[in-house]
């Protein structure tokens, strides 16, 4: 009985590998990307690419296990959700008002340590933000938001 159950689970896992993985596509950096704005300091650029861009841009670096279902379903849903909330690849397409809101959200989330999400950090330890990363990011966001309205 136990063996049958295990075999069943194994068969199911093999079968779902043939289903669509549901991973949003990745692309190279476009002209509307935030990083194309040449006022972004290099320390901020590295924080953003290291800790944010996997979910909040079209430049997702999928690890190998993301290709394995059912992990792929989970990762795909996360990335899709992240891009929907804020997609730095489409930054220049946002209105001034949306940019102000996005940067305000960013400051709140970072200050409240809600980002990056725990599930992501579990397998991306290098993406964890240090206290000084958070301070740098918040003060940059504040200045950058102001510069949009000058």
């Amino acid at each position, binding site marked *: 009985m136990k063996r049958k159950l295990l075999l069943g689970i194994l068969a199911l896992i093999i079968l779902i590998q043939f289903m669509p993985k549901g991973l949003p596509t990745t692309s190279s950096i476009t002209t509307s990307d935030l990083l194309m704005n040449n006022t972004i300091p290099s320390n901020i650029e590295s924080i953003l690419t290291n800790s944010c861009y996997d979910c909040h841009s079209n430049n997702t670096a999928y690890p190998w296990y993301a290709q394995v279902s059912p992990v792929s379903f989970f990762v795909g849903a996360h990335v899709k959700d992240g891009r929907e909330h804020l997609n730095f690849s489409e930054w220049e397409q946002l209105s001034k008002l949306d940019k102000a*809101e996005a*940067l*305000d959200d960013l400051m709140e989330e970072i200050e409240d340590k809600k980002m990056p999400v725990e599930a992501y950090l579990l397998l991306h330890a290098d993406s964890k933000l240090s206290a000084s990363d958070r301070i740098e990011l918040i003060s940059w966001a504040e200045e950058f*938001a102001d510069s949009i309205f000058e």
Partner: protein
Amino acid sequence: MSKFISLLFVLTTATVLLTSFKTNINQNTGIEIPQNIDAIFAKSCTGCHSVDSKNYKAKMKLKLDELGSMKTSKLVSKLSKIAKEIEKGDMPTKKFRANYPEKVPTDEENKMLIDWARSTASQLAGE
């Protein structure tokens, strides 16, 4: 004569101070919070959304007493979010509605808040 000058000086200083402390005018944009809007804020919102609030989450999202000193970008964002939250019916919270039914804004008051917040945000963003 010198008494007159010092009196004049004191008066001018007092006027300047009073104007700058007038919290219903944003010092960076000159945007004024109309009295009727301020009254709804006081009735329904500042209990949680103010500097003195004990509700950390609410305070972190919005402190209405800072509307007067916010930079343009922050003001635009907060006004836009105020309009969205009220429109979605997310604010005031369910708990607040249950505990203080008399403080819940009327439909008309909600509309006033949404219209004012949204139009002011658009005006500031030039959109």
